[in-house]
């Protein structure tokens, strides 16, 4: 499949080559100072994040196959882009995900059972962003590209409130929005960039180019490398090797800081790959070859980072303990998934409006009485 013509990684920022050796590209130069701030403990944390995210993702896909979930959109292969960028955000930053950013949710502190609940069909949101323990990680948006405008409007508000560009990076806020290569074709995403540039929002557009929008290759969405579109909007833009967690971290950290210090919106295109199916309902054998997928499996972000850590002298014990932690985590997710209760009738009516609404009161009452008369209750 002709999928490479517009995604040449020649200028993409890379810190680690695919075998895990430190070999920054020339384009990485402006970002190196951010790497110097990282300790061994940070590196181990990145590794742990990626392994846990993959264990979670694999477990969730299994749960879907066993009929526990309606659907699962896997993040397999995108952990480097997600963990690096997620860890680069500061605690005061606000994150607008699409629907595949499980690893970002993890590093922001969200209990990922919430994502399972959404995909199981017990809730539309799964977690409450107003709870500070959820790291300002907003609920998923399933309509492609819509969240880009929300992020931009939110960032306009941050700016109007004076909560950014005061000169203090410890408190100045920035906003980061995640979206895919397919989403770049939507009006909403393009309009978001227009508004962001116009109002000079403190915002990073984080585009994960995983090369596919379900069955449609990125070449159908764009004939030029996607990051180049940013400059047309007047937005500083950069392309990175998204399977290099260090590149993702350093580049995102710098551009978030640029955004929070008054530099306006920024665009990062992370080249990565959707190793799995689009969702568990999808059959990729209909539209792409295994050879192509294999060529990306060979660039796995976790394998690469493990090689880096080993090169740095990390002991076997680290990898063993992370593997054990991931197994425990997955089995905990499984156990808790089986324990998720079905929602009550009230969920359908109580949260539709913020203020009282006569139809909600009337219809909820009607349904409760009807169900009671049937002798049922909620199924």
């Amino acid at each position, binding site marked *: 499949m002709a999928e490479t013509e517009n995604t040449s990684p020649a200028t993409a920022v890379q810190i680690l080559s695919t075998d895990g050796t430190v070999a920054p590209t020339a384009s990485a130069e402006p970002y190196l100072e951010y790497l110097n701030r990282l300790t061994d403990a940070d590196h181990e944390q990145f590794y742990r994040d990626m392994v846990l995210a993959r264990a979670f993702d694999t477990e969730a896909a299994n749960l879907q196959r066993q009929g526990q979930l309606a659907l699962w959109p896997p993040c397999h292969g995108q952990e480097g882009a997600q963990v690096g960028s997620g860890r680069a955000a500061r605690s005061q930053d606000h994150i607008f995900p699409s629907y595949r950013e499980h690893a970002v949710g993890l590093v922001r502190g969200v209990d990922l059972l919430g994502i399972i609940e959404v995909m199981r069909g017990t809730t539309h949101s799964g977690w409450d962003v107003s709870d500070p323990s959820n790291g300002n990680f907003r609920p998923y948006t399933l309509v492609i590209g819509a969240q880009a405008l929300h992020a931009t409007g939110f960032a306009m508000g941050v700016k109007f409130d004076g909560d950014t560009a005061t000169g203090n990076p410890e408190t100045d806020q920035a906003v980061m929005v995640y979206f895919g290569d397919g989403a770049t074709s939507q009006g909403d995403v393009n309009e978001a960039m227009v508004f962001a540039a116009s109002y000079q929002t403190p915002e990073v557009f984080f585009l994960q180019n995983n090369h596919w*929008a*379900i069955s*449609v290759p990125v070449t159908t969405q764009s004939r030029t490398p996607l990051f180049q579109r940013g400059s047309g909007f007047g937005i500083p833009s950069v392309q990175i090797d998204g399977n290099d967690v260090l590149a993702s971290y350093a580049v995102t950290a710098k551009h978030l800081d640029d955004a929070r210090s008054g530099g306006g919106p920024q665009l990062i295109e992370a080249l990565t790959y959707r190793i799995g199916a689009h969702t568990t309902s999808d059959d990729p054998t*209909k539209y792409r070859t295994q050879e192509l997928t294999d060529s990306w499996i060979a660039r796995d972000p976790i394998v690469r980072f493990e090689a880096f850590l080993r090169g740095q002298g990390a002991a076997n014990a680290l990898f063993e303990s992370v593997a054990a932690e991931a197994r425990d985590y997955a089995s905990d997710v499984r156990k808790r998934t089986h324990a998720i209760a079905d929602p009550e009738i009230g969920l*359908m009516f109580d949260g539709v409006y913020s203020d009282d609404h006569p139809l909600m009161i009337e219809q909820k009452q009607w*349904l409760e009485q009807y169900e009671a008369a049937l002798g049922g209750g909620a199924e």
Partner: protein
Amino acid sequence: MSDSIDKTLQSMPMAKALNAGMRQAMANDPKVLLMGEDIGKLGGVFRITEGLQAEFGENRVLDTPLAESGIIGTAVGLAMRGYRPVCEIQFDGFIYPGFNQITSQLAKLTNRNEGSLQMPVVIRVPYGGHIGAVEHHQESPEAYFAHTAGLRSVSPSTPNDAYWMIQEAIASNDPVMFFEPKSRYWPKGEVDLSGPAAPLHASRIVRLGTDATLVAHGAMVSVLLQAAELAAADGISLEVVDLRSISPIDYEPLLESVRKTGRLIVAQEASGNVSVGSEIAATVAERAFYSLEAPVLRVSGFDVPFPPAKLEKLFLPDADRVLEAVDRALAY
């Protein structure tokens, strides 16, 4: 369907009937083309267009960029150029980015051009619930489009209707919103390849009865038939009307039925507030007032966003909810 010339009755699911109908339309007219997300190589997420790109090529079956406004807006331009585009919207809840192009452009262009411009565009929308999916994948948005002047809106309930109505929709010189009840994609039914059962906008009595009339479109028709079956066991005789078209609505068969039974229950998956059912209730009250023994009753989805899948059985009207309304109507 060259292999079926002497075999006019075939059993197939609606998904295959739609595919066969579109294949026929494409074979008949080189200006018919299909466009949408994932409809080419993948054959669409519901496989409705399976095999058509391989058969007709990439200029007849377009895997478009991911943009509904783009799909509809370029279909409008293609129609201006003499094509007959058939657009697939991947799921009901994803039609809204294209809403502006549908309602402000597609629906109005013939009028803007004082009738001199035709807009033969079909927009296929897999819609409705019963599939246990996440948000935006189970909605019934048909009232927005039925409300919009300039659009025609239809919804088949059987494979036979699907096969013929998609061809009639493509042949229409006006834009047609073609609502496909996705929960009915896979049950098989008999398709009569020898000729269309009815005109595109005709409603049809699908079960005879005497005590009350039930009317619906799309997937809800099968729920009504189930309800009528259950009621028959209790000695209640229900007539069922399949609307088939929600804009325009063919009222005569419905009114005739109501004049006979004196009672009408309108059912729909969509929320009831300002819905297709509301329109039918009002019109029947206007035109058959003296025949009515009871108020026209509506059985609808609640006036809430389609809930998480685990609540869909409570949201969607089932045969019991229909029969509860029948009981109320009969109590008058």
